[in-house]
């Protein structure tokens, strides 16, 4: 698919918007800094032996006792904020991307089933999706986390539950339109197995709108995770995501120690804005009708 995109000139088309191209480069840098966090961070924020409590809550640019510079300051444990942000990005991106992938798989399976079988299968799946989409995602996530408790796996489950309906709806809509086309008829005439038709013929043609929805949803999932963690219902403190770093700094904000919350927030904001800008341009390139 990537090869086909390249041949159709989609990459060139994408680069036509300078804002989108810049956002894509920035996003790649953000992802790289998250992936490379253990190698580029000045310290390991999880290693308590490296932390010096005397360095707690130093403003940005301060020097520690052993001469290292804290570019973005330190938090209440004396943790270097820059390192904390790199590691926090890692957690946030892992949660956002993994929950989106699981929700995508689930949504595709249910959406294709609804479109292919029709009848009561379709009615059941789509009614559940309708009911779920009539409630705000944060409310559903709150209920689920209250039910499941805390933890990385729990928050991924909550985010999957919030997202699947968007994909199911998108896939079903596209699949219904594609089903009426001639290539499906000819595949049916060739007596190919239904599984083969659905997976090899129907699914690839349903992908472009899904890519757009999924990109936007990664940003939404990261925001929601940060919000839940901020409320104290998300991740445990052992693997702080950006939201937890922000929550942690909130207590010191009224004392004027703005940097503990501000910089993780800026990293979160940059990530979300970049993803949304890339998604906007992807929509224009992949599906001019939706623009």
């Amino acid at each position, binding site marked *: 698919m990537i090869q086909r995109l390249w041949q159709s000139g989609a990459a060139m088309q994408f680069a036509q918007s300078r804002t989108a191209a810049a956002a894509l480069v920035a996003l790649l840098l953000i992802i790289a800094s998250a992936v490379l966090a253990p190698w580029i961070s000045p310290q390991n924020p999880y290693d308590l032996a490296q932390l010096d409590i005397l360095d707690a809550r130093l403003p940005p640019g301060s020097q520690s006792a052993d001469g290292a510079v804290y570019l973005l300051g330190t938090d209440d444990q004396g943790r270097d904020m820059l390192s904390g942000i790199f590691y926090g990005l890692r957690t946030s991106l892992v949660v956002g991307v993994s929950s989106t992938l699981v929700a995508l798989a689930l949504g595709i399976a249910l959406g294709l089933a609804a479109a292919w079988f029709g009848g009561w299968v379709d009615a059941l799946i789509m009614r559940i999706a309708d*009911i779920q989409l*009539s*409630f*705000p995602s*944060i*409310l559903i996530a*709150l*209920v*689920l986390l*209250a*039910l*499941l*408790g805390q933890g990385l796996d729990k928050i991924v489950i909550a985010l999957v539950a919030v997202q699947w309906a968007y994909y199911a709806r998108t896939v079903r809509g596209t699949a219904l339109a594609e089903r009426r086309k001639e290539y499906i008829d000819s595949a049916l005439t060739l007596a190919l197995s239904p599984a083969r038709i659905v997976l090899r013929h129907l699914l690839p043609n349903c992908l472009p709108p899904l890519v757009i929805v999924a990109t936007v949803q990664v*940003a939404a999932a990261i*925001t929601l995770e*940060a*919000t839940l963690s*901020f*409320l*104290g*219902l998300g991740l445990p403190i052992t693997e702080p995501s950006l*939201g937890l770093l*922000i929550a942690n700094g*909130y207590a010191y*904000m*009224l004392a*004027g120690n*703005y940097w503990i*919350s*501000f910089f993780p*927030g800026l990293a*979160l*904001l940059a990530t*979300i*804005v970049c993803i*949304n800008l890339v998604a906007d341009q992807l929509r224009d390139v992949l599906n001019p009708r939706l623009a």
Partner: protein
Amino acid sequence: MAAYVLRRLGQAALVVLVMSVLVFAGVYAIGNPLDILIHPEATQQDIARLSASLGLDRPVWEQYFVFLGQALTGNLGTSFAFNVPAIPLILERLPATLELAVAATAIAVLLGIPLGLWAGLKPDSVAGRTIMAGSILGFSLPTFWVGLVLIMTFSVELGWLPASGRGPTLDVLGIPVSFLTLEGLQHLALPAINLALFKLGLVIRLVRGGTREAMMLDYVRFARAKGLSEPRVVGVHVLRNILIPVVTVVGLEFGSLIAFAVVTETIFAWPGMGKLLIDSINVLDRPVIVAYLCITVLVFVLINLVVDLLYALLDPRVRLAAAGAEA
């Protein structure tokens, strides 16, 4: 129409029932509230007595039916933490949340319509592009982080506005409100702006899209041909047609404002339902969580029901489609 209304009512009741099972099952699984309420040195008898007085010693399904029976009579149990009935406890906080949500809606509409009109009339101007870029930010910025930045800027650095609480309230028809005093308004300002930003982006986009579409239609050209002044064309003819989708969306989004108020209330220590919910989750105050969720679900189902029925009333195609699907 009567059949449609009945079926729609049945659906709504079913959703409420299913949600009540989910909510009860979910909240039952959070943890054992006795661990928190009871003194560490309490004897086995004390624990049994408290457990029996709260009905926690009975089987789960029995607890659910007791809960359901009581829920139908408007009694969702007594708060473990406050030792008062849960529903009045929440309803007592309802005015604060509603005031916040109404203020946020007002800000979003009163700012969003003029800005959206401007961006729609002059889409290529610097101002138009700036407004649109701003609306993208409104969508992208996480509510809780904007709240922190607002506190940081206006409370900590500038010291203009208070960062938490509701300030003094005055009673209007027995309901406490804070927008009537200067100090109350100052307390309301930051949380309301915080909650409004997302909806502001939404209203701007809706109005801009509607304006651009309407400006190309025949009735606008006709109004111009009649020699009407530009302000009259835009202010009366265009605006009236844009307002229909805006009113619909703002109405539908009111429920989500109440849900998102959880975040804003937590940041600004606004004494509303949302803050009560988070506090209750933290101390496992089961009846209050259940009551909050039931009330919110009920509000949502009602909003959706009213909107659906209004649509059916206004647009016969909805009724016919529903009847056709059944046949």
